[in-house]
């Protein structure tokens, strides 16, 4: 069973969002998503400073087998990206919620956070998709 920590918010497209409490969030992909993709070998990160809208394709992660688009779960401005992933994309497999984070975002509209799923709802969504 994949790990779905409480306290994070999740998007249908398998990104997790951590509210940093200062108007910024950290974004990554869920344990379920990394498990589905398998060994990750390449990550294309967004550009720091760019403005994004919720649902925009802003990054790509590629496993040995497949490429997968990453969608911005919220609207806002990209603050920082996890450059470590350029050389160590496997960090996403090893530690999807800690070392494997993708980017931080300054949130434009906090109400968008409410539209995301909590851990229970996401776990159910992931399970339904599997079957």
């Amino acid at each position, binding site marked *: 069973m994949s790990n779905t920590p409480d306290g994070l918010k999740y998007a249908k497209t398998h990104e997790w969002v951590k509210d940093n409490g200062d108007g910024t969030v950290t974004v990554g992909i869920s344990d379920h998503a990394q498990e589905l993709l398998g060994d990750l070998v390449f990550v294309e990160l967004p550009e720091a400073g760019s403005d994004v809208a919720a649902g925009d394709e802003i990054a790509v992660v590629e496993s040995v*087998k497949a490429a997968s688009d990453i969608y911005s779960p919220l609207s806002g401005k990209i603050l920082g990206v996890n450059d470590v992933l350029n050389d160590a994309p496997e960090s996403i497999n090893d530690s999807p919620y800690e070392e494997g984070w993708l980017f931080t975002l300054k949130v434009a509209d906090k109400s968008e956070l409410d539209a995301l799923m909590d851990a229970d709802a996401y776990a159910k969504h992931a399970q339904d998709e599997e079957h």
Partner: protein
Amino acid sequence: MNKKTILNQTHHDLGARMVPFGGWEMPVHYGSQIEEHHAIRRHAGMFDVSHMQIIDLKGSDCKRYLRHLLANDVGKLKSTGRALYSCMLNSQGGVIDDLIVYFMDETWYRIVVNASTAQKDLGWIMEQVGVFGIDVLPRSDLAMIAVQGPKAIELTLPLLNEELHEAAAELKPFSAVWDPSWFIARTGYTGEDGFEILLPQSDCVALWNDLADAGVRPCGLGSRDTLRLEAGMNLYGQDMDETTTPLVSGLDWTVALKPEERSFIGREALEKQKKEGIHQQLVGLVLDGRGILRSHQKLFVGDKQIGEITSGSFSPTLERSIALARIETGSPHGFDVEMRGKHLPVKVVKYPFVRHGKLATEL
């Protein structure tokens, strides 16, 4: 509903990620596709390949029939147990499937075809029997395990009975030995040494477990694909299919146009294509930059498309992306791949990329 091999429960118990493949539920990996890949390059690993279709052809006309059916010439097989790789073509020269044929004796040949094409192949094979005096016997009673890697033979031999052990220890590449129930071939699809073992389903789980106890790592179809790509081996349905001939698929070495009097299905079409000129070829590609080459990505010289990738992936051994691609002959050796709207330079290299654990090309 996908079919299940006799090892299905074993795969589930090992925690495999199972996926549908060619009408079967098969393991894609048991945790890490890359580690499984390295296990085979550096030590030993095994695949359940029981989904592949084994077909025995028996009868006095076997040889004549196969010399008609296949683009390669089973007449080359002079001693029993020898194996040959061949394409089976339609009359336009397109590839219906690729297969391995084993010469068992004058009235018995064994062929192994791909899982996803098994029904189509059987239909075609039956259809061509016509006046030939042969029986077509699908062997769904047999399972198949491929044990591959530098340590594969050493770890497998002690698990064979005494007679097979001795005979298998002497096997040359691309040949096989058997007893009434087990069949051991020194063949594979990884670029490493090893065996492919065909055996009764009732013996299969025990052999798998014994191999695992001996240190042979279970490997899924994911690593099978990256291993065969590094080894420069074509995959049916990607690198060739019914719309492409062997001559534009890097498989001209498998077409026996001599002796000239042998008429095989597709021969006329291939001779015509040869006479009119071969305009495409299969090449190996390496991406120096970041990103992963994938099948169907387009290749460009300037803004003119000159071809397309047929198989692409990340190479765990070379730690960069490699591919096979079909391009127009005479294209320059440097061109671009289109990846998510951007053009990135790729380099043409000779393939295989990797053989016996080592770099086999110039990067």
